[in-house]
């Protein structure tokens, strides 16, 4: 367990080797090295996790300082990695799911000419993400934060010859940057008040009363603004749907399981701060709830299989933030945990479908695929059931935990929104399932010829993920079944300082469970009617409400609004600044200096007439002046 600091370094070393020597390494070797490094990290994470179970809470967190990094006056930030329950869960998720996705990528990207570059980036991403979750201070966490942003840009724009992909990469990075600006401000304030970015120091400062409620609110809001960028919440979510331009395994890893959840991790890590400032917590909860519903409505109408999943991700992260917002950080993290499994499963399975159909992603051109994809279909179905919140699968436990806590805290508005979102989640997921795997075949004939199930290297990870999507929920059983039942929450106790978590009577809790289940079944049934029983129904509804449909289909025109209100003024403003200032003033100054120097030179060269007499004249002048000075 003392080796936990190796967890980020193994993929990092692999990335470095691939970056420097990748050109000369054979493809098979690249696959093995990339996957094994992550697997090794996973094993160490596992060992560390079990090690954590055995030690008492007082010796947490365990910190290993690799070297002294920043020392400026009284401020120190070291390259320190920390192991505690929260980071342990995150490392397990990142390395475990990451490993499965690496394996899947061997098959999915097998014919791509950028194969080595892909695994270099993927390893680099894993390294950065692990630094993010294992950093012992805010500064190091921010390094990881930026690192994953960079890798996201690199991987989204992986097929950079495609304009849409390159633009999507840019968009992701730039939108993230806006959030990061607020994040940095938050970090600065913390360092200002606490004197250090160390999490232990921050905890100490908050418990010691150094941080006032007002400051806590300000800092928490700034940090959360950064989280909205990274975790794709309102208002900075716009990059995630476009990020689907990247390869599907990338979407699974980065934009489902890990990077986008970094915001949730960060909020949980700083839970004391958010609890201290009640306002920030409320904001987090409301933003989460609004995003959950907002994104769910957009997912209803999308025809691109990956976009549906993208909006679904935005929506589910909203749920995680609802959990954090109402003080149930453990519930939020729990949903992060289960979501990693079933969402990456859904993405990988969708990738499998696309692979089978030679790259088709429009659901209108699918249908009836369950006959041809005997492994992809059941695993996808498992993922869909899990996310819909059907009992006994993982999604049910985590989503229910969140909604119950929301209700218990008296946040009925948030709870109601969450419930509505759950209906929509069930609906759009099963819409996806029915359109893709059931019904009449609307396949492109050329695609149909090449229709084949994916190779084992791709389907085995699907099966593994499906398994976890089912069982992962059992570590976090609802409290009604016994105080001790929620292993997950108890594991996180040393980190998530228990706030004033309200409780509901067990009767109320059972009622809430029943409502959630009913809602989920409702959604599935409606989808069944719409897309299997009477497939004309969607068309009739669209015909009845054309304007609403248009609004939803065009994603509420948010991209267009941002473009007009923010992007274009900025670009034209920059153009003006460029013309007026950059060209005229800055270039003018430099050219002017050069011209002035040249001019001075030319003037001086007038003195060099080449005439003897002129030189003698100057001599004489000098003598006269010299004598004059001496005399007077």
């Amino acid at each position: 367990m003392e080796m936990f600091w190796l967890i980020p370094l193994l993929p990092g070393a692999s990335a470095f080797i691939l970056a420097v020597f990748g050109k000369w390494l054979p493809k098979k070797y690249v696959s093995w090295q990339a996957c094994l490094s992550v697997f090794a990290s996973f094993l160490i994470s596992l060992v560390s996790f079990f090690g954590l179970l055995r030690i008492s809470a007082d010796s947490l967190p365990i910190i290993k300082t690799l070297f002294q990094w920043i020392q400026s006056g009284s401020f120190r930030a070291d390259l320190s990695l920390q192991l505690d329950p929260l980071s342990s869960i995150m490392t397990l998720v990142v390395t475990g799911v990451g490993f499965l996705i690496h394996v899947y990528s061997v098959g999915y990207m097998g014919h791509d000419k950028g194969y080595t570059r892909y695994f270099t980036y993927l390893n680099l991403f894993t390294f950065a993400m692990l630094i993010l979750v294992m950093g012992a201070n805010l500064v190091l966490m921010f390094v990881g934060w930026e690192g994953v942003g960079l890798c996201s840009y690199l991987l989204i724009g992986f097929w950079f010859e495609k304009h849409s992909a390159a633009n999507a990469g840019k968009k992701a990075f730039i939108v993230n940057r806006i959030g990061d600006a607020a994040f940095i401000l938050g970090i600065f304030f913390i360092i200002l008040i606490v004197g250090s970015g160390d999490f232990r120091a921050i905890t100490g400062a908050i418990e010691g009363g150094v941080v006032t409620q007002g400051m806590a609110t300000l800092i928490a809001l700034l940090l959360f603004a950064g989280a909205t960028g990274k975790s794709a919440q309102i208002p900075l979510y716009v990059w995630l749907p476009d990020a689907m331009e990247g390869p599907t395994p990338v979407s699974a890893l980065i934009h489902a399981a890990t990077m986008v959840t970094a915001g949730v991790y960060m909020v949980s890590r700083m839970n004391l701060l958010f609890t201290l400032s009640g306002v920030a917590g409320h904001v987090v909860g409301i933003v989460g709830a609004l995003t959950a519903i907002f994104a769910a409505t957009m997912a209803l109408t999308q025809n691109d299989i990956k976009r549906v999943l993208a909006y679904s991700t935005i929506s589910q992260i909203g749920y995680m933030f609802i959990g954090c917002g109402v003080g149930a950080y453990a519930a939020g993290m729990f949903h992060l945990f289960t979501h990693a499994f079933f969402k990456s499963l859904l993405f990988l399975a969708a990738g499998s479908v696309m692979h089978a159909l030679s790259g088709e992603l429009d659901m209108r051109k699918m249908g009836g695929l369950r006959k041809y994809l005997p492994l992809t279909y059941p695993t996808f179905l498992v993922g869909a059931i899990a996310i819909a919140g059907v009992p006994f699968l993982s999604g049910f436990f985590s989503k229910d935990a969140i909604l119950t806590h929301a209700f218990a805290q008296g946040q009925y508005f948030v709870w109601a929104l969450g419930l509505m979102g759950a209906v929509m989640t069930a609906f759009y997921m099963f819409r996806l399932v029915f359109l893709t795997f059931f019904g009449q075949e609307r396949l492109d004939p050329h695609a149909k010829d090449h229709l084949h199930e994916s190779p084992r290297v791709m389907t085995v990870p699907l099966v593994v993920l499906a398994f976890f999507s089912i069982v992962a929920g059992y570590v976090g059983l609802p409290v009604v079944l016994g105080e001790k039942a929620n292993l997950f929450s108890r594991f996180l106790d040393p980190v998530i300082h228990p706030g004033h978590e309200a409780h509901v009577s067990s009767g109320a809790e059972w009622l809430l469970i029943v409502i959630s289940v009913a809602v989920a079944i409702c959604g599935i049934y409606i989808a069944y009617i719409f897309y299997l029983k009477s497939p004309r129904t969607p068309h009739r509804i669209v015909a009845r409400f054309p304007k609403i449909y248009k609004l939803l289909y065009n994603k509420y025109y948010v991209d267009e609004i941002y473009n007009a209100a923010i992007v274009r003024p900025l670009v034209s403003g920059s153009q003006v600044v460029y013309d007026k200032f950059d060209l005229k003033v800055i270039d003018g100054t430099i050219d002017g200096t050069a011209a002035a120097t040249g001019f001075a030179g030319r003037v001086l060269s007038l003195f060099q007439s080449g005439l003897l007499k002129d030189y003698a004249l100057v001599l004489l002048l000098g003598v006269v002046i010299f004598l004059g000075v001496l005399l007077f």
Partner: protein
Amino acid sequence: MGIFLFFVLAILCVGGVLGMILSKNQAHSALFLVLAFACLGGLFGLLDAPFIAAVQIIIYAGAIMVLFIFVIMMVNLELGIAPERKRWTLGLSAFLAVFLLVELAMAVRGTLGSLGRTGGPSIGSPTELGRLLFTEYLYPFEITSVLIIAALVGAIVLVKKKEKE
């Protein structure tokens, strides 16, 4: 008697130099200069420096000016180059020269009184000078002889026409 001689020689000297400046013909300028140098030689004599006076006449007026006249003859010049066209440098140089004169005058004003008079024992007898040259000032003497050889060789090498192949 001495003062009278002084003034005659002085006026002749200045006149010679002025003549050199104002004359348009280089040969005439050279001859005027010879006159000036000769007068200077006389002035040196008045200053109780007979040896130097002789040297001045022999070397300066005799050898150097003859060199000048040789070169003037060798260089085919159009007769009389007009003096400098009016340019602002001319005015400035004239002004500066006069200013220099004023300055020099002011510089020496204080000490002019204490310079004493000529007459009295001669300090520059050739014997005395010779003794000094070969004892105290031996090094400059010898180096000067080397210098002369260098100048001699240099002048010959410079002007030698290329051998016709």
